Structure formats: structure tokens, C-alpha cells
């Protein structure tokens, strides 16, 4: 074995040896990997590069021990896990995997719970480490990725870069000898990308073996070796110190990435700094987009767009850059009337999307104007491939034109033209779900272009694509420019922005000062820990107690019982230290229901003395009494539920759930697995909700409407939403199952627990109070 001369850390000990690997996704018709042999040495940093579909990700998964090949031999960390003759060896795989960590492209799909330290603890728990060791591992690995101050944060609310660092920490906590990363920065902005790369440099210095799949040439700079793949084969193994290697066969524009300029948007003019009044009156070019004093506040109260004014001339291409979270995507949606601004006016292609009336009120577009807007303005959302739904590519692309009620011949012309513009005519009759990610992106964009918009809004159209697919989209943009289409393009790629746009601007960041950057800032992701009496109760006790109290409340039938119930409820609110206003905001959606319930009771109760009588309806004294009583007791139930939810983290809830279910294990129930399902489900709610919303928006922008049109159209519109939502659900599940594998989760393993229950006197007191209350209700 030859020594590798130019790297001091590199040893000659193989960490992973793969020989003559073949791997097929379609039972041997085509080979994703064809006779690949590669040895990864302990301590080296290896980069895997190549176009989409070249087999990099598959190779990475094989090195991580997450999947087995069709033939060849693999030895991982000294364990012979696969040979052609014997097939996969589960015990050896199991042993090898404990020493290998893997980080995936999508940061969100690797998070298993809603508290950072619990998430990091998940792997060590699966390895059965002792509790004290788990604590040390959490501490050390979070420090290694610069998230030590975020132990208690909710990872689902952190920035993409932080999530990805948390995912790396989750792997480090398992003390891996090899860390495999599959395009870990593909979904991150420049700042976040730099954060992750810093962490990798640090790990490299510590001697961790790193296998890194990437599309970014600049990310290979610190690699010891660069393995170049194409069509399932290794075509070259290069040394980066000789020449940083771009993807072959594609002319690559030089990208000065990683400089401070590209990270912050640097010296770019801010969007909105353009002097509007300098525009000479009555020029030939009129504005296709006029935005004046635009303001947008999230439901959470955070202002993201503040007094923003700008114009985009007809036929102009505007690129908007800027940090994640600065409101670029929000702006794109507002321009397409997919959201309501909180102030200011927007006019796009002559349609008033939002205008300030004389009375100072905001008015959105009416139905007719909206129809007009939909036919003139195209919207390519982030990851538009997630909106594909139809049986064939041609059908999917035709969705927009058909919604414009064109006749079938016209629709077919539009579809043909759009597919041709992106060079994907040959895919017309394929199912969009059979295509590669890059092809899917092109199909989705064709679906928007087929509507022949006069104004096209694109949100990161080339993110995480390889050079070839990017080049196709760049070509399309140039064609549209020649046709006079006005384009607004959001991008993180500075070179792309300057190559395509007439004007490159940076989105003003309204919360720059509080934005979470690298290490120690207090962000919104920090939950307010409830340290009150109720907050500290054993969650099992709390869950059972609250449910008992809630069900008992329905037995309240007299004013005396109601007073007791109210007293106990207010006692609990006080002991939970919750501000009544916060509580009210939690229950106010149900007030309408309460009012309706009271009204029903007022009418249906006929006993007692009549107070008012209106024809057949009469309101009696009993009716009033019952209406008040029923409404109050239901309100108390809801308040108790809200107090429980506000003082208990989802993790505590699922832990309690598992612990309470535990006795059922004897009956053959998989309680550990069911609790994990529950915990993962709660964690994925925000993800699925957000995704569903963006799919609804994207289809609406193509003119799909569930509310209007014939029954057939509505059903079509509905399936255009439901099918992509299911597709997304399955995609997340796929990613998640790999992430669980990477964390060494297995059915029925003996796990240790980082969080332990320690019921004390406080819990006993709570039990006594609840029992006394139930007894009192029964007696009164």
C-alpha cells in the first residue's frame, strides 16, 4: 500500500474498503454504481464530486453502512460487512455502524425531537450509554459545533445552518471514527455554509475521517483527495492542491465563494435604495412591478419587511440576494398575492395586488383582478419539484394553461413549447415521480413557463442543482429575457445573479441585529422554560391528573360544583405561573363555539319561568342558567388543557406517554416504538404544515382553485394539492428512516434514557389535590 505523501494526518490504515461494487436501483437495467473500488484511509478528508445521478450519494450510503450493494465486497472499520458470496452480514453491519455517522442534505429530516439536547442524546441512548456519559457527550459535541448555548432550544425553529450543525453534533455524540456527509450545505445560504465548513475543518484537525459529498468546488479546498464520479464510475481521484476541480464537461463560471462579501451581501445596493422619483416621467419603459412602502409582519409579531419601495421596469431582470430570514421569500409571495401585506401597496403587471384606500385601509385584489394576475404572473417556489402531481409530465405542465381555460390545441402548443425551452420534450409521457431531482425541477419550472407569464417571480430556482441543470435554467431565463418577460429572481449565487440580472440587489435585513449568526446569540428559538410548580411536576402525574380533572369537569351540574371547579382551575393557573392573557390567546379560537353552545342551550331548554318569548322561541330562567353553566364548564376544560400544553414540552409528553404505556408491553404492544412514532409525528407537524401551505400557494399561482369552478375542476385542484402533500410525506419518511438508521435505532434495542423521571412530594401533593377535587365534585 502506498503512502499518501502530502497529508500529515493521513495514515495508511484503511477506514473503509470497497472493492468492485455494483449497485442498481432498477434490478440490473442500469447501474448506479458500476465496478467501483475505493479505499478511505483513517484520518483523511475525502470529497466525492460529480453531476447529479453520478452515484455519489449511493457510494456515501454504502460507506456509511446504511445500505448494501448488489455485488462486490465492503469492509468498514475492520468489519467485513458484505461479500458477493455471503451477502450482507447484519451483525457486522451493526458493529460497524456504531462507529460511523452520517449527515444528510435536508437538515430538517434528521431532527427527531423538539429539544436540542434530547436530539443529540438520541444516538447515545440507542447505543445504550450510561446517563452520565450521555451528559458528557452532549456537552462535548454541542461545544464542538458551537451550539453549547442552544441546549434547550427547539431545533425545528433554528436556522438551517444551526440545524445542520445540530445534526453533526448528534453524530459526534456517538463518537464516530468516520463521518459521512451527503451535500450537507446544499440547502443552506452562504453564512450557514461557512458555519458548517468551519466545523468540518475543526473535525479534520481532530483526526476524524471525513467523507464529504459536494457540488461546491470551494468546499473541496481542504480535502486530502477528491474522488470524481460520473455515470456510476470513479473517473479520477485528484489532489486538490494540484488543481481544485470543477465538474468536467461543463464550463464553470468562477465563483468567489466564502468571501465576506458574498456572505453578507456585502457592497450590493439594498433593494429599495433605488431613487424612485428620479425615474423620468413618461419614459417608454414603464414599471411592471411597483412596490411602495410595503410592510409585512408575521403572525408572531416579528416585522420582516419595513417600508420597502422599489420598481422593476418592464423587461428588466432583478436579482435579490440576502441572508435567510430577511424576507425574500415572503416578498416573492406578496408579489404573487399569496399573502397579505400589513401595509403599503403593490402593483404587478397593472394589477393592484394591494392598495391603500383613501380611508387608509388596505385592499387586496378582487376575484377578477386575481384571475388576471394569475394569468400574467408566474411563481416558481423554492423546490418547485415538490408541487408535481399529475400522472405524466405533459399533464402536469398543462395544469396551468388548462386553468386559463385555453382550448386543448393551444394547451398542447404551450406544453410543447415549454418542454422544448427546457430541452425535456423526451420526458413528456413519463411520470414526474420517476425522474431525477434535477429533471423534476425542470418539469416544475416548465409548468410555470407554460402559463406564458409576463412577469416571472423565481425563488432560488437553481438551489442544489448541478452545473448542467443550472445551465438549462440559465438558458431559459435568457430566452425569456429576449421575449421581454420581467423577471425577479431570488438567489444565493452571486455569480448567477451577476451573469443574468440587469440589477443585483440585497434584501434589507430588518432584524439584522438579532439574527442568530454563529455562536452565542439569544434567538427566538429559545423556549421559555416553565419552572413553576406545575411546570416541574412529573409529566406522567401531570398528564393523568389533568385528564382526570378535565373529564370530571363535565360532571359539573350545579353552581356550587362550578365554583369549586373554577377555584381549582384558577389555583392551577396560578401554580403554573401563566399570564392570563397568554392563556386567553390560547383559547380564544374556541370562544365562538362556546357562544354557539350557549345559544343552543338558551333555545332548547324550555323549563323554568319564561323571560323572553319570540314567536316559537322562548328563553327561560333555566335556559340562562344552563347556558352559563355549560359554557363555563367547557371553558374550564379548555383552560386546563391549555395550561397542560403550555407547561409541558412535547418531549416530556411523549416520555410520559411511553412510560404510561409501558405495562402494555407485556401484551405484546411495541410501546417504545409507538412512543417514538408519537414523538416524531409531533416534531414533523410544523414541517408538513409549512410544506402544505407552500404547495397550496404554488398551485394557486398556476390558477388552481378549490373554491371556484366546476366540480371536476375543483376535484382536480384538490388532487393537485393532496398528491404532492402525500409525496412529500413519503419523501420525509424515507429521509427520516435513514436518519434513524444512522443514529443506530433498532426495534426492541435496550435504550438508556437521558431524561429520567423522579417523582417527589410535589407530585404526591398534586395527586392529593386532584383526588380531593374529584371526590368533592362527586359529593356536592
Amino acid at each position, binding site marked *: 500500500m502506498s503512502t499518501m505523501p502530502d497529508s500529515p494526518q493521513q495514515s495508511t490504515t484503511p477506514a473503509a474498503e470497497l472493492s468492485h461494487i455494483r449497485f442498481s436501483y432498477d*434490478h440490473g437495467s442500469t447501474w448506479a454504481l458500476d465496478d467501483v473500488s475505493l479505499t478511505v484511509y483513517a484520518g483523511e478528508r475525502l470529497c466525492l464530486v460529480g453531476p447529479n445521478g453520478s452515484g455519489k450519494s449511493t457510494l456515501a450510503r454504502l460507506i456509511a453502512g446504511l*445500505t448494501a450493494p448488489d455485488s462486490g465486497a465492503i469492509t468498514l472499520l475492520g468489519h467485513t460487512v458484505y461479500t458477493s458470496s455471503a451477502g*450482507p452480514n447484519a451483525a457486522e453491519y451493526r458493529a460497524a455502524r456504531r462507529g460511523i455517522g452520517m449527515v444528510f442534505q435536508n437538515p430538517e429530516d434528521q431532527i427527531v425531537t423538539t429539544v436540542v439536547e434530547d436530539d443529540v442524546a438520541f444516538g447515545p441512548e440507542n447505543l445504550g450509554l450510561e446517563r452520565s456519559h450521555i451528559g458528557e457527550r452532549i456537552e462535548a459535541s454541542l461545544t464542538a459545533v458551537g451550539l453549547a448555548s442552544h441546549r434547550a432550544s427547539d431545533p425545528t425553529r433554528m436556522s438551517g445552518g444551526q440545524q445542520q450543525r445540530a445534526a453533526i453534533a448528534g453524530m459526534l455524540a456517538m463518537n464516530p471514527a468516520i463521518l459521512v456527509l451527503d451535500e450537507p450545505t446544499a440547502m443552506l445560504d452562504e453564512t450557514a455554509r461557512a458555519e458548517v465548513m468551519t466545523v468540518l475543518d475543526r473535525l479534520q484537525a481532530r483526526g476524524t475521517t471525513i467523507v464529504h459529498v459536494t457540488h461546491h468546488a470551494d468546499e473541496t479546498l481542504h480535502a486530502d483527495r477528491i474522488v470524481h464520479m460520473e455515470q456510476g464510475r470513479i473517473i479520477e481521484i485528484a489532489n486538490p492542491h494540484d488543481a481544485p476541480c470543477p465538474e468536467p464537461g461543463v464550463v464553470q463560471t468562477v465563483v468567489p465563494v466564502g468571501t465576506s462579501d458574498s456572505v453578507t451581501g456585502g457592497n450590493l445596493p439594498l433593494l429599495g435604495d433605488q431613487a424612485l422619483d428620479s425615474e423620468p416621467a413618461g419614459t417608454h419603459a414603464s414599471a411592471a412591478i411597483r412596490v411602495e412602502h410595503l410592510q409585512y409582519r408575521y403572525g408572531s409579531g416579528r416585522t420582516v419587511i419595513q417600508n420597502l419601495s422599489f420598481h422593476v421596469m418592464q423587461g428588466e431582470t432583478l436579482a435579490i440576494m440576502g441572508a435567510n430570514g430577511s424576507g425574500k421569500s415572503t416578498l416573492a409571495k406578496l408579489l404573487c398575492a399569496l399573502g397579505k401585506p400589513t401595509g403599503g401597496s403593490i402593483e404587478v403587471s397593472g394589477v393592484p395586488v394591494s392598495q391603500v384606500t383613501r380611508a387608509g385601509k388596505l385592499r387586496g385584489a378582487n376575484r377578477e383582478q386575481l384571475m388576471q394576475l394569475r394569468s400574467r404572473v408566474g411563481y416558481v417556489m423554492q423546490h418547485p419539484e415538490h408541487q408535481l402531481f399529475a400522472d405524466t409530465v405533459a399533464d402536469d405542465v398543462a395544469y396551468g394553461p388548462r386553468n386559463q381555460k385555453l382550448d386543448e390545441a393551444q394547451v398542447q402548443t404551450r406544453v410543447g413549447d415549454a418542454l422544448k425551452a427546457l430541452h425535456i420534450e423526451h420526458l413528456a409521457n413519463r411520470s414526474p415521480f420517476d425522474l431525477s431531482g434535477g429533471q423534476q425541477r425542470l418539469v416544475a419550472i416548465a409548468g410555470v413557463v407554460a402559463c406564458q407569464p409576463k412577469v416571472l417571480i423565481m425563488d432560488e430556482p437553481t438551489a442544489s442543482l448541478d452545473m448542467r441543470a443550472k445551465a438549462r435554467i440559465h438558458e431559459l431565463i435568457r430566452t425569456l429575457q429576449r421575449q421581454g418577460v420581467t423577471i425577479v429572481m431570488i438567489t444565493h449565487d452571486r455569480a448567477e445573479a451577476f451573469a443574468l440580472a440587469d440589477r443585483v440587489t440585497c434584501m434589507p435585513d430588518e432584524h439584522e441585529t438579532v439574527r442568530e449568526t454563529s455562536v452565542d446569540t439569544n434567538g427566538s428559538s429559545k423556549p421559555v422554560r416553565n419552572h413553576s410548580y406545575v411546570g416541574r411536576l412529573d409529566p406522567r402525574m401531570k398528564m393523568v391528573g389533568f385528564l382526570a380533572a378535565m373529564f370530571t369537569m363535565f360532571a359539573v351540574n350545579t353552581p356550587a360544583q362550578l365554583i369549586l371547579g373554577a377555584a381549582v382551575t384558577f389555583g392551577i393557573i396560578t401554580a403554573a405561573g401563566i399570564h392570563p392573557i397568554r392563556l386567553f390567546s390560547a383559547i380564544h379560537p374556541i370562544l365562538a363555539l362556546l357562544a354557539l353552545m350557549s345559544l343552543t342551550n338558551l333555545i332548547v331548554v324550555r323549563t323554568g319561568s319564561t323571560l323572553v318569548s319570540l314567536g316559537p322561541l322562548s328563553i327561560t330562567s333555566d335556559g340562562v342558567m344552563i347556558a352559563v353553566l355549560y359554557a363555563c364548564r367547557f371553558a374550564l376544560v379548555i383552560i386546563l388543557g391549555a395550561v397542560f400544553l403550555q407547561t409541558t414540552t412535547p418531549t416530556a409528553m411523549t416520555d410520559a406517554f411511553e412510560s404510561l404505556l409501558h405495562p402494555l408491553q407485556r401484551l405484546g404492544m411495541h410501546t417504545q416504538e*409507538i412512543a417514538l412514532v408519537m414523538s416524531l409525528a409531533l416534531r414533523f407537524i410544523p414541517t*408538513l404544515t409549512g410544506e402544505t401551505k407552500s404547495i397550496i400557494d404554488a398551485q394557486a399561482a398556476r390558477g388552481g382553485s378549490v373554491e371556484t369552478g366546476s366540480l371536476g375542476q375543483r*376535484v382536480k385542484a384538490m388532487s393537485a394539492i393532496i398528491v404532492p402533500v*402525500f409525496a412529500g*410525506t413519503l419523501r420525509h419518511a424515507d429521509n427520516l428512516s435513514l436518519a434513524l438508521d444512522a443514529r443506530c435505532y433498532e426495534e426492541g434495542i435496550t435504550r438508556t434514557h437521558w431524561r429520567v423521571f423522579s417523582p417527589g412530594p410535589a407530585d404526591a401533593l398534586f395527586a392529593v389535590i386532584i383526588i380531593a377535587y374529584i371526590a368533592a365534585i362527586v359529593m356536592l
Partner: protein
Amino acid sequence: MSISSRIRMQAIRSVAPEAEGAAGSTANAKLGSHSTGVADSGRWSTRRIAMYALFVALAMVTSFIEFPITPVAWLKYDPSGIVCLIAGFAYGPSAAIIVSVLGFVPHMFADPWGSLMAVLVALCLSVPASLIYRKIRSRKGAALGILAGAVLAIVAALLGNLVITPIYAHMSYAAVAAMILPILLPFNLAKMAIHAVVTFLIYKPISNLLAKQQ
């Protein structure tokens, strides 16, 4: 064939009978399994856990999308039943039970009785449907399953309303029973009809998607 791949095959067969030929042919049985034999050693592979979790999450999300479909404002339609049905078709009755029960847990602390009833109705709909579909694996079987499930679910919903309505409104059972024909039955019929039509329409694309997952 390992137990897990047998289960996976069963899942494929149950949703996409047409995919069976391709995946099940013995000639290439060894190719394309790619199983390491680790985390899918038991009945609950990590893939199964991940699938269940995502379906439960989807049921939770859709259960919050409520809107009235009849003039009676307090009876609201939500599409979560569709998710329970699809889960049952794709992964069998146990999946239907897990999604139907866990999917309504978040409602437990807002409306305890209402969520118990929602669980009961979802179970009555999805479990018989998946049981019948397991026996008759065709479009006809799916239709029969949904029909049987819908009838049971409507009966359960009506009985449930008899018990639960008096907890919210001061009404006698007789008074609630009087509402069945004019109010409760039409609502539940409409609800099940929407479930059935939508499930049927998305059956093909979704079964193709499921079949693609190895």
C-alpha cells in the same frame, strides 16, 4: 426473503398489485434488496416507524383543517379520515389503528369527548376498510372496503352523537335522536362521500409512489 422484505412486498402488493410482477419475480429477487439486515430485522423497521410517524403527523395536520360542509355550523368536516384510510390500505390494519388513535391525541387536551369520538369514527372507517382490502386486493376491494367502513363509521358517529351531545347541550337522548334524520345523517353521509371520492381519486398516483419505495 426476510420477514421485513416480505412485509414490504405485502405493502406493495396491497397498494399496487401491478407492481408485484416487477418486484416479486424470483429471477432478480436478490438484486435491488440492498438491505443490510440491521434495522429491519423485526416487524418495526426504521422505515415503518418513519412511515407511521409521518402519516400520524399528516393526520394531525389535516385534522386541524376543519370547515362546515352542511348549513349546520358546529358539525365540521376534516380530511384526516383520508389519511387513515390510505395508511390502512398501504400498511394494513395495524397502521390504520395507530394513525387513527395517535392522530387525534393533540385534540385530547382541547376537546376530550370530541376527540374520543373522532378516534372511534376514524377506527370504524379505516380498520374494516383495510381488513377487506387485505382480502380483496383490487380497486373493487378498495371500494367495498371504503363502503363497509363508511357505513360502520356513520353508525358509530350517530351513536356517539347520542352519547356526547347531551354533555355539550342540555338535551335529552330523544331530542338528539330527533336531530339524526335532518342534521346528523346528512352531514355524516356527505363527510363519508367526500372521503370516499378523494381517496379513490388519489389511490392510483399514491400507490405508484408507495410502490416506488423499494
